[in-house]
């Protein structure tokens, strides 16, 4: 049994946390680890390649849980740099996925960021087809952004998602429903609440959580 993951998102700009007085990513991430995070998702803003390896290395040496980096990667060599610096996983825009040579890095280490757009005609089948295509490209999952309509639709029935899905969701009540219906983890803005508090709000969902 795999625990449903609770993953705080940290925005990084110029090698520092964008939303916490410019703190070092390693310090904030380590605090979140001790507060119960299962993983950290760093989202890099702006052009950060020059500074990236340095702060990723610092995080890798300080953190004892996995972390992922979502960034405007320009190609496979940038992915290689980020993974070699210690990111356990890189998140690339779904539209660029075919250009990233994902099989070179192994199935689990490259995932796609995409937005689920639900249409009455296509429903979840259309979204699932998109996820299947990612699997065929050698990607190991997706970070899915979904609006209220999509989440309502997801929660209305159990969806057989083909690859591990981390769902961006800031609402613990909706998150609990989505986890119970097929999502594998929740990514939420780190400044919203601590991971332990988020997990406490999921307690009634009947899903496995790491304590």
């Amino acid at each position: 049994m795999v625990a449903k993951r609770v993953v705080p998102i940290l925005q990084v700009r110029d090698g520092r946390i964008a939303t916490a007085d410019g703190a070092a990513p390693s310090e904030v991430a380590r605090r979140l680890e001790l507060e119960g995070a299962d993983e950290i998702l760093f989202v890099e803003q702006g052009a950060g390649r020059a500074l990236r390896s340095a702060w990723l290395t610092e995080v890798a040496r300080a953190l004892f849980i996995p972390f992922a980096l979502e960034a405007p990667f320009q190609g496979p060599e940038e992915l290689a740099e980020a993974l070699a610096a210690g990111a356990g996983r890189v998140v690339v825009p779904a539209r660029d996925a075919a250009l990233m040579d994902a099989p070179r890095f192994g199935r689990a280490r490259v995932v796609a960021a995409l937005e689920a757009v639900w249409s009455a005609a296509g429903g979840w089948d259309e979204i699932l087809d998109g996820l299947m295509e990612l699997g065929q490209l050698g990607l190991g999952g997706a970070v899915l952004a979904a609006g209220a309509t999509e989440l309502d639709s997801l929660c209305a029935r159990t969806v057989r998602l083909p690859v591990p899905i981390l769902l961006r969701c800031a609402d613990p009540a909706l998150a609990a429903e989505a986890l119970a219906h097929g999502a594998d983890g929740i990514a939420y803005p780190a400044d919203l609440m601590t991971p332990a508090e988020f997990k406490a709000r999921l307690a009634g969902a009947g899903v496995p959580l790491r304590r």
Partner: protein
Amino acid sequence: MITLIQYGDQPLNTLEGALDHLGFDHRRAVAPGGAAPDGPLILLGAGPFEAACAALKAGGWWWDLPQLAAAGRPVLGIGLGLHLLAEGSEESPRGTGLGLIPGIVRSLGPGVKLPHDGWSQVRQLRAHPRLPDPRDAWMYFQHSHALEATSETLQVAHHGRPFSALELRGQAVGLQAHPEKSGSYGLVLLAKLLACLDEQPRARVGVN
């Protein structure tokens, strides 16, 4: 002193951070000639099996590692490193492993999402006098293939089927989960495994 085998673009930073936190001395070596004169050799791995085999061959490890192990040198394989220590992997049907741990690595599934990427619980299959009973401790896994458990396997986890989480065969140890990414329990287990391989930290360090 611990030697971290550096091959391909394997990320060693996280493991180095864990060893520093625990107080162990370590160095990286790109070729066998750069290894410390004694102490465990750690083979950490992530990514495709075949590319890792090629990188180990390029560095000369492929031929020297079995010889070092035969001479009594402890070897610890982590993640893909366990697969490389086994006899072979379905991930690369024509390829073979280093053969330090018996068994063939096979695909997980069917019927489960792959990769198995996240935290799963580990339980003890066979007790070992120097290792703690995990008692369903959560550890972090990131893989699509795994060694099948046998009666010699110490600890197992489950994803679609039971698979080996920890093997200890003489001086060869294989760990499917990543202890360096498994929080405080992972650090405790890493320190205990290294103690089993007669490696001690510089000073006793608290784990949190």
